[in-house]
């Protein structure tokens, strides 16, 4: 059948998904249309509430996003930073290391 992808354990049908998505969208729009019509764009209604003061119009910069995540996983990231030195010698060293590990795995693998 067209539009159904068999994935071994189950199936995935984007067309059915799209149909379901459209139905849900229609329901959402239906519910939305029953709402109040007093909404005005560009008035105080849309402004953010900032304790009665003027809300600052700033942009959260990329460096500040996920701050808590980096604090929690700090040790892991320090380890990663130590790994990614950016020195070409370490790049070649990683390659040699993988070759040695693979060689050990392939030659010793039969014995285990």
């Amino acid at each position: 059948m067209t539009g159904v992808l068999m994935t071994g354990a189950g199936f995935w049908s984007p067309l059915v998904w799209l149909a379901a998505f459209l139905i849900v969208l229609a329901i959402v729009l239906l519910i939305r249309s029953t709402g109040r019509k007093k909404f005005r764009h560009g008035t105080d209604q849309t402004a953010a509430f900032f304790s009665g003061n003027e809300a600052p119009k700033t942009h959260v910069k990329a460096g500040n996003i996920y701050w808590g995540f980096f604090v929690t996983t700090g040790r892991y990231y320090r380890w990663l930073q130590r790994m990614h030195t950016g020195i070409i010698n370490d790049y070649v060293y990683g390659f040699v290391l993988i070759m040695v590990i693979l060689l050990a795995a392939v030659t010793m693998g039969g014995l285990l």
Partner: protein
Amino acid sequence: MMDLPFIAVMILIMLGISAAVLKRNMIKIVMGVSISASGINLLLVALGYREGGVAPIFTNAPAAQMVLPTPQALTLTSIVIDLAVTAMMLSFVILMYKHYGSTDSRKRRLSG
């Protein structure tokens, strides 16, 4: 004595790669890569050697078995490629020296 070239090949390749891993001077890293390439070229030439064979050149050839010219062709090709690669790497080192003022591989700006 037949294994002598192969031992030399191994030594050359190891030398080249250890230079690429251990040396911090980028010119020396390029030299290491070139040494490994020469080691592999030596391997190809040594593989093409046959006891009692003559070189595959028709002109004034003695009446004896000729060796297959494939390894020689491979070696020539790989020498040409090695030349191009070495020239490229050296010109990058020149450019980096112009910008960073050093040929030390630890002086890098890309990391992490």
